[in-house]
C-alpha cells in the first residue's frame, strides 16, 4: 500500500496527514500552494509552490502519474478536492468514496449519505481508490520527521480562469474553525448578519456560518453555507442563532463537540440536537452574550 495525500495548502496538509498517519501506510504529499510542510512523516512532498489552486483539468493531469503509483489517493473534503479528485478518479477509472468519516480496513469505509440521515459502510472492490475525508473523525497529525521535497510541474488547463473572488477577511476558515457562529433567515439583511453573527464570531475568535435560506436571500455570501451541500463543520463550539434546523443544515454540524441553539421558537428542530438550548429573541440574547463574555 502507498497513500498519496493531495493537500491544497499547508493547513490542508496538516489536516489530511492525521488520516494518513492513522491509516498506517507509507505516504507522500502533493502540496499545491504555499510552502511545503515537511514534518508530517511523508516520504516526499511534491510541491507545486503555486499561489492559487489551478483549474481541475490541469491539476488532475499533473498528479495523475503520482496517483497511478498509489493504492489510495486522498484529500480533505472540500469543494476544491471534490472538483479535482473525482476527475482524477475518472482518469484512473478508480472507485471513489466521498466524505469518509471512518475506516475499518484499507477497503472498507464509513460515510454519511442522504443528508447525514444514514451512515453507509462502503466496500471498495479493487484498488486504486480515491477518497475525500472529513478530518474530524481521525487523529490529529504528529509533527515529526523530515520529508524530501521535489518540485511538481502543473501545466496549463483547458479551462481558463478569468477572475476569482476570494472573500473571508480576518476570520478563521469555516471548516477548520474551533468556534462557529451561524445565522439563519431571521437576520434581516447582510448588514445585520455581519453585525450580529459576525460580531459574536469575532468576539469568540471564530468563523461565521449561515443557513441555505440566509445565503439564498442574499444575507450571507455563498461560501458561508453550512450543510449537506455546503461546508461541513466540526468545531468545539457551534452556536446556531435563528436557525430552525433543517435536515440539510444539521447534516453539516453533527460532528460539533458542543451545539448551542438560540431561537425564539421553542419547537424548532435545532433544539433536538443542541446541547444547550436558549429560547430567546436573538437580538436580545446575542448582545447580552457579547457584553458578558
Amino acid at each position, binding site marked *: 500500500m502507498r497513500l498519496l495525500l493531495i493537500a491544497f495548502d499547508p493547513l490542508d496538509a496538516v489536516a489530511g496527514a492525521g488520516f494518513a498517519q492513522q491509516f498506517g501506510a507509507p505516504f507522500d504529499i502533493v502540496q499545491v500552494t504555499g510552502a511545503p510542510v515537511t514534518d508530517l512523516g511523508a516520504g516526499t512532498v511534491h510541491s507545486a509552490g503555486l499561489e492559487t489552486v489551478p483549474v481541475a*483539468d490541469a491539476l488532475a493531469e499533473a498528479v495523475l502519474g503520482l496517483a497511478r503509483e498509489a493504492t489510495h489517493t486522498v484529500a480533505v473534503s*472540500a*469543494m476544491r478536492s471534490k*472538483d479535482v479528485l*473525482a*476527475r482524477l*478518479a*475518472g*482518469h484512473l477509472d*478508480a*472507485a*471513489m*468514496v*466521498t466524505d469518509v468519516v471512518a475506516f475499518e480496513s484499507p477497503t472498507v469505509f464509513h460515510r*454519511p*449519505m*442522504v*443528508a*447525514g*440521515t*444514514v*451512515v*453507509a*459502510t*462502503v*466496500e*471498495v*472492490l479493487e484498488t486504486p*481508490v480515491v477518497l475525500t475525508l472529513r478530518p474530524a473523525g481521525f487523529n490529529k497529525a504528529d509533527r515529526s520527521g523530515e520529508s524530501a521535497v521535489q518540485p511538481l510541474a502543473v501545466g496549463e488547463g*483547458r*479551462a*481558463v*480562469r*478569468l*477572475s*476569482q*473572488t476570494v472573500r*473571508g477577511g480576518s476570520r478563521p476558515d469555516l*471548516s477548520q474553525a474551533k468556534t462557529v457562529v451561524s445565522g439563519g433567515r431571521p437576520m434581516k439583511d447582510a448588514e445585520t448578519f455581519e453585525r450580529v453573527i459576525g460580531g459574536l464570531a469575532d468576539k*469568540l475568535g471564530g468563523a461565521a456560518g449561515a443557513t*441555505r435560506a440566509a445565503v*439564498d436571500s442574499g444575507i450571507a455570501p*455563498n*461560501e458561508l453555507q453550512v450543510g*449537506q*451541500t455546503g461546508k461541513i463543520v466540526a468545531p468545539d463550539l457551534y452556536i446556531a442563532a435563528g436557525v430552525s434546523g433543517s*435536515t440539510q443544515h444539521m447534516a453539516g454540524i453533527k460532528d460539533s*463537540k*458542543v*451545539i*448551542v441553539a438560540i431561537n425564539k421558537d421553542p419547537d424548532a428542530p435545532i*433544539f433536538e440536537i*443542541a*446541547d*444547550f*438550548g*436558549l429560547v430567546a429573541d436573538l437580538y436580545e*440574547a446575542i448582545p*447580552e452574550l457579547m457584553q*458578558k463574555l
Partner: protein
Amino acid sequence: MKILVPVKRVVDPYAKVKPLPDGSGLDVAGVKFDVNPFDEIAVEEAVRMKEADPSVHVTVVSVGTSESEEQLRKALAMGADEAVLVETGDPMDSGVVAAELEAVVRQVQPDLVLMGKQATDDDNNQAGQMLAARLGWPQATFACKIARAGDHIEVTRETDAGEETLRLALPCVVTTDLRLNEPRYIALPGIIKARSKPLAKQARATDARPKSRVTTMAAPPPRAAGRKVASVDELIGALRERGSL
C-alpha cells in the same frame, strides 16, 4: 447547440427516510421519488438556454430502472425536447454511470453536458467529473451562472472561498449548484405535451462493473440529549463548565 442533461431518480429529498432495520438499504415504503434537485436545476438552465436561442436542442437521459421514465417525463414537461432511458436494474456506482453516460454522449454528440453536482441520495459528487475525465473535456463544477460567448461558455462557480469565473471551450461538462436558477413550476399544458415527446429506451452500452458497493446502512449515532437553559447567564455558566469558553 445540443445540450445533454443527465437526470437521476432519487428519494424525495424533503422526506424523512431511515435505513431498514436489517441495514440492507433505505426504507422507502410510502416515500415519493423525484428528479434529483440539482439535475432539475440543470434541466431548467438548459431549457432557459433553449428559450433564449431556439436552435438549442435539449436531450435528457437517465440510467436506471423503467421507473425513471417518470423523472424523464417531468424533464420533458419542463421543456426538454427528447429523452433517452438507459434501462437497467444492475448495481451501479458513479463509475458505471459515467461509463454509460460516456456512451450516450458518443451517440447524442452534445456540445454541453449539464448535470447536477451531486445526487441528494448518495451525496457523492462524482459522476460529472468522472464523465469529463473519460471524455477528455474541460469541466466547471458548482456552477452558479452560465453565459454563452460564441463557441465558448463562461461559467461562474462557487468555491470554498468565494466565486470564480472560468472560460471553457465547447464541448465541456458543467455541474450545477443551488443558486444557478429556480426551476419552474410545471403547468398542465407542459405535462400533456410531454406525453407525446420522444422517449427512447435502450439497453446498457458498456459492461462496466461497480468498483464499490454499499454493504450496510445504519442510522448515525444519536447525539446525547441536551437541555434548555433559561437565561444568557445560565448559558455562559454551562459553557464555562463544559470548557467551551
